[in-house]
């Protein structure tokens, strides 16, 4: 049977302020439908960060030379979100604000230590990504706020990142995926953040895995320990994509592969 949505009314605000006043007018009854507008659509470096307008379409990340050259983790992610047709319509802000642990951007933004900018009747505020995901499909924004921008800190020298996703087929959610962003000091990991996709009820950082890396001199054993830590600390649900043990082991492998790729990139590789 065709999927016909329930009846609703539709407003097409021409400015952010108009959108905010509509949200207030229909308090609790309104849902933001991204993707039909050209407001808030940009990807550009501004000082110490990359600024992404919340309504930027995913394909714009694929096509952006600054993303491709300087934000490898984000570029990896953009290439594996859903499929090419969906990426022509889907928005970065929508992917994050939905707070779905199966979506790809949450893990990536956690690994980047991104900051989210929101606007509401009381004005603009910023929310650290670590404070943003509060539950399954729940985030730290109030009903009358709109996500306007995502800010990713410009990676320091000797940094690298990677996103590795294991999926049954193009367009499916990940069985598991790992986002890694790290900085090296010689062969020592000076800083590392790791986000995991679809192995927890709320988008999560693998802080145990991070702790296995930071301050350590890189070796196969250290990378394996990080993978095992992530496998232990994630909390996957069994479903048609596999059982818990299987998903934990895939997580171990995804984390290891992302670390290896991130290290190679931090050392100047592609």
């Amino acid at each position, binding site marked *: 049977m*065709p*999927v*016909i949505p329930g009846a609703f009314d*539709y407003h097409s605000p021409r400015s952010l302020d108009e959108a905010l006043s509509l949200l207030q007018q229909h308090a609790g009854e309104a849902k933001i*439908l991204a*993707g*039909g507008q050209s407001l808030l659509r940009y990807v550009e470096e501004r000082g110490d960060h990359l600024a992404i307008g919340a309504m930027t379409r995913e394909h714009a990340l694929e096509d952006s030379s600054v993303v491709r050259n300087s934000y490898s983790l984000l570029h990896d992610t953009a290439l594996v979100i859903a499929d*090419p047709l969906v990426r022509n319509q889907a928005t970065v802000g929508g992917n994050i604000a939905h707070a779905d642990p199966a979506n790809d951007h949450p893990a990536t933004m956690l690994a980047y230590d991104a900051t989210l900018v929101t606007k509401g009747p009381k004005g603009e505020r910023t929310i650290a990504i670590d404070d943003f995901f509060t539950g399954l499909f729940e985030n730290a924004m109030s009903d009358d706020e709109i996500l306007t921008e995502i800010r990713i800190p410009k990676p320091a020298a000797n940094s690298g990142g990677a996103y590795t996703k294991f999926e049954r087929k*193009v367009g499916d959610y990940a069985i598991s995926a790992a986002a890694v962003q790290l900085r090296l000091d010689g062969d020592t990991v000076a800083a590392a953040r790791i986000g995991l996709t679809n192995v927890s009820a709320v988008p999560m950082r693998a802080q145990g895995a991070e702790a296995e890396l930071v301050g350590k001199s890189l070796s196969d054993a250290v990378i394996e320990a990080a993978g095992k830590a992530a496998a232990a600390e994630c909390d996957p649900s069994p479903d048609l994509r596999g059982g818990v043990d299987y998903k934990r082991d895939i997580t171990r492998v995804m984390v290891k592969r992302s670390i290896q790729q991130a290290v190679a990139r931090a050392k100047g590789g592609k």
Partner: protein
Amino acid sequence: MSEHEVTLTVNGESVTRSVEARMLLVHFIREDLSLTGTHIGCDTTSCGACTVLVNGKPVKSCTVFAVQAEGAEVETIESVAAGGVLHPLQEGFWEKHGLQCGYCTPGMIMTAKEFLVRNPNPTEDEIRRGISGNLCRCTGYNKIVEAIQYAAEKLQADAGGE
């Protein structure tokens, strides 16, 4: 129910209709405009049978509300054979047997049309990635890839390419 007047360009012609907010673009195209070349396969953004170009980009029209297409330029499969002459992609699907049941074909062609604009001389791997949002339940992908390769070569030759 809330009715909204929507004006958009479909295959070069401006159309204005009153639609419910919840009407999907694919239903608008098929039922209000009677352009039934655009198919509905899964209704869940998986299969790509409903692919049309919106402002030049292929999207799944079961994932867009008609009201969101206000002011947009929409192209459907009916626009592809300009003046009744088959487009090189249509010719390629004919020559290379790029279809079995044909259900996915309009979506495949709309996706491939934009893909070849961006990438006129693609590798086989690039073609396969390019059509990865379109499913063929006959699994006739090899022939579809050959059809797109045929079209790429023909378009290059027509453009006086090397």
